[in-house]
């Protein structure tokens, strides 16, 4: 309460009917322990101040006392919906530092896995977005289809969420014999289910009234705030690393970078929906062409990076994820920094939500696809 009072006193232009409320840390639409200090006049949002730190787990500091293969499993727990891409970023960073070339098979499988987890992440985002808007039905439909992907993960990686599948040097296991069959069956099934999503939510009049023309983010502001991923691309910021800085097998596939120049909440929604089709097309192009070969290269028992600074970035479901490793030649890194997409995206919220109603703030936050441990790692 003292903190609230302090903000009340220090803000100059307080009018009599302006007040502050805490949205969170325990709020169903923040999807985790995120606290937004919202300054309101009636229903109109004047200022949103995100307060983070409620779920800080100190992963960067922990990584300094772990060896390089051990860091990967911690990144599962940051952005748990993009666990594959996070693992891949650490693996690629270490491989680049050691100048290890992984077999093509590894690259193909990593790409398929990344796209599958992007699909799973977007499915969860879609169903939760409907739930935030008050349409609980969507929640069951999204989770129903996500279950199929998680079953594929469970069969091949041994875990459903915290997979720890891409490790420095390759993969933890080879793919399961049923993997290709299951993925093809899933793609075939989901192609009939995705139009169902559109019928349920995309055209719904209540949904479109609440999202169309709400919460604009211009391209310049997106670049200035470092907003990446589907959120940035909805504002016209061409930031898809899969296209512009291809890694793994992304240079071998044809796909479109989904861009929209509208920049409102509905555009962010549509970009993600279109990305699901693109992800499916990428998987279809690769799934039958996985080359034969080893699933990992032999690494030394103790992985030591040469002295220096190494950076690797990948495109997760939320945007650009970067791993920065400073090595002093020992088996533990000297410093590890993770550039998480959620953190940069979140802090554009004050700019976007200003002047809109508090109910629109929920819609805007929903299309940001926030994962709190990713913001507050």
């Amino acid at each position, binding site marked *: 309460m003292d903190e609230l009072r302090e903000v009340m006193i220090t803000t100059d232009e307080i009018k009599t009917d302006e007040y502050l409320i805490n949205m969170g840390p325990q709020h169903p639409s923040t999807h985790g322990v995120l606290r937004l200090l919202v300054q309101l006049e009636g229903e109109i949002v004047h200022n949103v101040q995100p307060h983070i730190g409620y779920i800080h787990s100190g992963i960067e500091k922990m990584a300094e006392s*772990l060896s390089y*293969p*051990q860091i*990967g*499993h*911690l990144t599962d*727990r940051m952005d748990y919906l993009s666990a594959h891409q996070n693992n891949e970023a650490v693996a690629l960073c270490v491989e680049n530092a050691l100048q290890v070339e992984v077999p093509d098979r590894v690259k193909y499988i990593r790409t398929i896995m990344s796209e599958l987890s992007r699909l799973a992440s977007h499915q969860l985002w879609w169903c939760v977005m409907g739930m935030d808007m008050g349409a609980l*039905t969507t929640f069951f439909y999204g989770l*129903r289809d996500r*279950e199929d992907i998680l*079953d594929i993960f*469970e*069969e*091949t*990686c*041994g*875990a459903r969420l*915290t997979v*720890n599948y891409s490790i420095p040097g390759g993969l*933890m*296991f080879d793919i*399961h014999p049923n993997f290709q069959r299951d993925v093809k069956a899933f793609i075939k099934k989901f192609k009939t289910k995705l139009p*169902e999503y559109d*019928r*349920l*939510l995309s*055209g*719904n*009049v*209540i949904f*479109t009234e609440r999202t169309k023309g709400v919460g604009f983010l211009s391209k310049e502001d997106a670049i200035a705030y470092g907003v990446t991923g589907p959120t940035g691309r909805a504002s016209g910021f061409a930031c898809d690393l899969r296209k512009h800085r291809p890694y793994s097998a992304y240079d071998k596939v044809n796909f479109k970078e989904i861009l929209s120049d509208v920049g409102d909440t509905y555009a962010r929604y549509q970009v993600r929906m279109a990305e699901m089709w693109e992800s499916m097309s990428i998987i279809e192009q690769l799934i039958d062409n996985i080359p034969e070969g080893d699933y990992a290269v032999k690494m030394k028992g103790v992985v030591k990076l040469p002295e220096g600074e190494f950076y690797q970035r990948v495109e997760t479901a939320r945007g650009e994820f970067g791993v920065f490793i400073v090595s002093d030649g020992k088996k533990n890194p000297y410093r590890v920094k993770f550039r998480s997409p959620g953190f940069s995206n979140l802090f554009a919220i004050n700019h976007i939500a200003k002047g809109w109603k508090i109910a629109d703030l929920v819609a805007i936050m929903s299309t940001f696809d926030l994962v709190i441990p990713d913001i507050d790692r």
Partner: protein
Amino acid sequence: MKSIISYITEILKGIWTLLTGMKVTAKYFFTPWKHVTQQYPENRKTLKIAERFRGEVIMPHNENNEHKCTGCGICEINCPNGSIEIITKSLILEDGKKKRAIDQHIYHLGMCTFCNLCVKACPTGAIVMGQNFEHAVWDRSTLTKVLNQPGSKIMEGVKD
């Protein structure tokens, strides 16, 4: 007049979009045999868990109560959370030489993140991942387990 017509068409269009969504839910309402839910605690016998599923670390023993663990401690080094503690003892062989052997392979299930690094690193394949996932207990001290069974010894021919 025009505004009234557009107002009414807007309403009708809106209702139509709602009905389109309702059609999807109605389809599933009248085809309940397509349900995807599982009756979990009741279907334990038919529940299929993937063979690679990482539920807990176990040490398989054969029928003579023998395992493959040499007590080398590589799993302990590879564990990122300190979930594994290796306590060794030294055995005196028949020819008078001393040999290291496992006394207790202590596994803290409550600290484990199921990353598979210990299983991957084990040179003799002594520990594997088990599929049991029902780990809820009343007392957390029961989460600390000793993986090698009492009275067990190392299998013939396993060397480190």
